[in-house]
């Protein structure tokens, strides 16, 4: 049966090749869009790691002329040669930030105040790379104060968050998320392990030690792929003149606090530091803004591809319909020789299935090339597999739907009338 269908398809290869190309292109478009959608859904289901309700973030800008840089990339080693520390006034700034935090703490609505370098949903990103037992691990990172875990509602799974205990440590205490801990130490308890920052050259003193493991911290929010994350401790009373102070404040307020709190908090900060600029935002609102940015490309792609598919569906129906009208005589002959309506319909739909299958086989062959181009570093093979499966189902459904109407029409051919033209 299949072989017979293949032969029929082959006999009309000139017009069939175009149909196959059309199905192939639609399939590729569909895979692109579903991959993005499945990727988002898959990410959305995973835990975020922090609370969003009842939290405000306030960023501090110290230069009235705006942020000092768009992006700063640095290689694995910023300072190969030993040099004198540069005093940029960080110690003083740190003390002033500590003052601001105390001023906020005095407000009745405030439950906890913490400071960090990178906060959820912000566009600031810090990335680094570390080598443990010969394997490289990439991670996003932030620096945070001792109160950060409490203010953000982070879930500590093992060990502890930073505290005064770390004050005298000769190592650099770090907290990692479970994913990074598992990746670095698959068969050991990560708490208490030393990891050394990949710094060739003389500055080897920065030995990091994992003091705690948190469940998760997905800085970019629900739709981003979960990634490795590492926190280092930022002390506001740090005597190191070179460590930049954290410029983002995180405030947990009592449930039921209204927006009026924000004005009072910002006014209080402005009064304390008239030279600085403060930007307050409820984390719920940052989430909304960030989600809109994530969803915009998906909705644009979805709308465009939906129209594309409608167009293809209409075109395909039209073309198949024309083919049926051209083949009236052939169909009439088969009917005269005793083929039933079902037989005819089966043949026509079968031909379309064969064509779709050819297109899909070629499509899948093309599609599997993409992961080789390093897509899997972001999208997991499972997500990719599911999207290809969904696309296959959709494309078969589409082509069958397009074949159905012409096939019904063909089966309505009366043998006598069809043969009259012969």
């Amino acid at each position: 049966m299949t072989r017979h269908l293949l032969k029929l398809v082959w006999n009309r290869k000139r017009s069939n090749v175009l149909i196959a190309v059309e199905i192939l292109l639609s399939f590729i478009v569909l895979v692109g869009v579903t991959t993005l959608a499945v990727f988002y859904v898959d990410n959305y289901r995973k835990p975020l790691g922090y609370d969003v309700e009842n939290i405000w973030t306030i960023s501090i800008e110290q230069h009235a002329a705006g942020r000092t840089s768009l992006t700063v990339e640095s290689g694995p080693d910023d300072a190969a040669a030993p040099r004198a520390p540069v005093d940029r006034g960080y110690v003083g700034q740190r003390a002033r930030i500590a003052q601001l935090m105390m001023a906020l703490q005095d407000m009745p609505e405030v439950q906890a105040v913490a400071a960090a370098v990178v906060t959820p949903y912000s566009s600031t990103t810090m990335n680094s790379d570390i080598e443990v037992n010969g394997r490289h691990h990439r991670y996003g990172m932030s620096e945070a104060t001792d109160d950060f875990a409490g203010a953000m509602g982070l879930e500590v799974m093992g060990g502890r968050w930073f505290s005064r205990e770390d004050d005298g440590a000769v190592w650099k205490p770090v907290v990692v998320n479970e994913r990074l801990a598992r990746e670095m130490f698959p068969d050991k308890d990560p708490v208490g392990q030393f990891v050394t920052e990949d710094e060739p050259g003389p500055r080897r003193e920065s030995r990091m030690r994992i003091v705690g493991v948190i469940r998760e911290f997905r800085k970019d929010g629900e739709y981003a792929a979960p990634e490795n994350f590492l926190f280092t401790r930022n002390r506001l009373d740090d005597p190191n003149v070179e460590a930049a102070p954290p410029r983002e404040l995180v405030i947990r307020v009592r449930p039921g606090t209204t927006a009026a709190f924000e004005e009072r908090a910002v006014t209080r900060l402005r009064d304390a530091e008239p030279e600085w600029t403060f930007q307050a935002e409820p984390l719920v609102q940052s989430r909304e803004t960030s989600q809109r940015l994530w969803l915009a490309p998906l909705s644009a792609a979805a709308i465009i591809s939906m129209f594309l598919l409608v167009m293809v569906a209409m075109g395909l129906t039209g073309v198949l319909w024309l083919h049926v009208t051209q083949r009236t005589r052939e169909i009439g002959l088969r009917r005269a020789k005793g083929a039933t309506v079902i037989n005819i319909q089966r043949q026509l739909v079968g031909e379309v299935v064969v064509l779709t299958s050819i297109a899909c086989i070629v499509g899948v062959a093309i599609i599997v090339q993409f992961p080789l181009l390093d897509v899997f570093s972001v999208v997991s093979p499972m997500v990719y597999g599911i999207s290809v499966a969904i696309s296959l189902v959709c494309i078969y459904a589409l082509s069958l739907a397009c074949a159905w109407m012409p096939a019904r029409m063909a089966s309505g051919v009366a043998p006598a009338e069809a043969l009259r033209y012969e």
Partner: protein
Amino acid sequence: MLQSYLKLAWKVLWRRKFFTAISLFGICFTLVVLMVASSVLDHLFAPQAPEVRQDRTLGMFRARMTGERSTSTSMPGYMLIDRYARNLAGVERVAVFAMPQTVYSYKDGQRIKSLIKRTDADYWRVLDFQFLEGGPFTDQDVANGAFVAVINATTRDRFFGGPPAVGRTFEADGLRFRVIGVVPDVGVLRLVANGDIYAPLTTSKTDSYKRELMGGFGGLLLAKSTADFFAIKTELESRIRTVPLPVKDFTKLIAPAESLFDFVAGNLFSGRNEDRSHPERLWAVIVAAMLLFSLLPAVNLVNLNMSRIMERASEIGVRKAFGASSRTLVGQFVVENLVLTLIGGAAGFVLSALVLRALTASGLVPYAHFTLNYRVFGYGLGLALFFGLLSGVYPAWRMSRLHPVQALKGAAR
């Protein structure tokens, strides 16, 4: 002759309404997507008001310090532009502006979030804002650090509920400004001209920016003519090479004068240690994306037309039998396709205008005003015409060379 072709084309299109609808839908939809995409690009880059002198303007938008191991990329600092980009031969004026900063005002318990852009007085001379009220601040205002501001129409509505605003004061970021001018809204994606509040540079809370080499500022160099661009770029480049670098790790600094498009292309496509921007690569990506997108509708159109021509084999046969030449037959099909494409084009044009209006009204991009790009519309229509002719005329031509008897039998294979 042409009249009868047109009449025929009209009749043929009406005879098979379903197929006409599919073709029109395809042409129309493809054009709409191309138009919207190009309108967004226009909104980002094209010389729209107030950047009317864009053909004579070079910008300074990026500075990069590189060392053996590290790279630091940012906007240029105030000092870099102020000290090294002034008095270049062929440059009429230099304007400096700070990257906009989000500032908050609280009015009756409501928060008003605005972008404040601090600029010098030349900014108003390089750009051509059409003032709704009042005028720009002057060199004197900038020198004195006067707390005066130009605001856009939306900000006027937010603070004062409508005109007149000049002379009234408002608070932003704990500072009190007096309004001296009101300008129309500029799309928030227009890096050079966007802003809710424009204030003198000297109203910054500190003057530390004056000593900074990197970060936070953009420069606009208004050349006397486009012909001077090369000389200006070269001179600036050689001056930047003499800048003493403050951090030892860095050995090289670049801060080119370039168009906004070059800047974006440079951000996207230049390697870490490549100084040159690659606008042609960004162009290639944009054109490739548009062509790739048009591929599916094109295949659809070709497919449909190829199949339909078979349907008309007997018609061609009859005409041939009565002595029509191949050329006349092809002529008829050309006219048919032209009519179809033009109707589709007209529908696409109207629909694009509606979609763009809806997009503007949706406020998805604050203040953006999306307009039709006629050039891209022409290209899109040309593309549709090309595929229409290819798919309609080629089979018709083949068919027209068939023997009339065969054609009459409908035996075209």
